[in-house]
């Protein structure tokens, strides 16, 4: 049994205005919830900024090239890279990768490095995360390596091509949301 509402409700504003306020409030809540869920679960950065390094490792003098990033330098001092004593930065490429658009980087040391930015996510409380497909071709165009990786922003991904104990070629890639 519902008594007439006007007998017990306090009317602090007109019914129509109160109705509009409630409708707008609920609409805002729904929109914010949808945006929040979408942002949390499927946030995608349309473009990421990547740095690609060509490094020659050897047992000669010279140490670690000062042009290398400090984070990468720390890793080069640890095994298995510590088996080499010299790391020389041969080339540095900086490029922006668009989502799901392949890009080739011509290597100074020869060959081609192809990379495809496939996916991006931003889990709650975590760093941005990228999915990248990488293909490495030799000078003759023959596919040497094909891989797909998922890494955090700022992480390094290194392909070490070792022709023996004396010398190796390192191809390092790191990406960030601009």
């Amino acid at each position, binding site marked *: 049994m519902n008594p007439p509402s006007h007998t017990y409700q306090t009317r602090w504003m007109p019914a129509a205005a109160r109705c509009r306020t409630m409708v707008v409030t609920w609409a805002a809540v729904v929109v914010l919830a949808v945006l929040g869920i979408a942002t949390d679960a499927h946030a995608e950065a349309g473009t990421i900024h990547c740095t690609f390094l060509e490094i020659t490792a050897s047992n000669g003098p010279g140490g670690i090239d000062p042009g290398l990033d400090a*984070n*990468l330098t720390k890793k080069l001092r640890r095994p298995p890279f510590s088996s080499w004593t010299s790391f020389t930065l041969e080339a540095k490429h900086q490029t922006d990768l668009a989502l799901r658009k392949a890009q080739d980087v011509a290597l100074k040391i020869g060959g081609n490095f192809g990379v495809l930015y496939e996916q991006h996510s931003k889990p709650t409380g975590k760093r941005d995360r990228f999915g990248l497909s990488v293909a490495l071709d030799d000078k003759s165009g023959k596919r040497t390596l094909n891989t797909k990786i998922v890494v955090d922003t700022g992480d390094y991904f290194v392909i070490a091509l070792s022709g023996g104990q004396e010398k190796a070629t390192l191809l390092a890639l790191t990406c960030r949301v601009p």
Partner: protein
Amino acid sequence: MSKSQPFDDIDLMTYADGELDDSTARAIAAYVADSDDARVKLAGLDEIHESVRTHLELAADDAEPRFEDLWAAVEAGLGAEAVTSAPAAKALPQRQLAGKGIWQRLGDWLDQHTGYLMTGAVAAGAAAALMLLFRPPEVIEKPTIVYTNPSTARTRPAATLQLPVLAAPSAPEIELLEVNEGSGSVFVIPGEGEDDISTTVIFVDISDVEGPL
């Protein structure tokens, strides 16, 4: 006119209204029987009573149609069927709605359901808060890679390698690895201390291959 038991006009009016006890009523009846003056007064009181009663009955009969809608609305509001004028009661909400805008109608509806809406909102908020507070931690799965070397795939099946468990909560993953020249291995150098940058390394031994690059 007997004065053996005197009664005043108030007593006569009370007698005429029938509000006296039996013994007093009998005494006044005896008094009226003996007194002409009292009979005249009592007859006048009866006429006045009759006139007032008639007037009120006529007024009630005249007012009843005007209150039918009100009574019907009250009874409809109480959840009971209208007794006297069901058609009028059914027509009343339509007349009440007539002339109201959609916002006004929606407002009226919300007036009646504000309690439910507020309860739902509070419940939803509480549920969301509980989900945020007690959601399970994200499970960090060991990254699994599939290593495939076409040159050796015919003689041995592709091996599934497990990367070492990493301390980093956001361990890198290698979903696919194909090494077409030489042999490959994968390892991860996790960050240490303030350095939380992991480095994933694919180590390709091409010592037995002629000039891949």
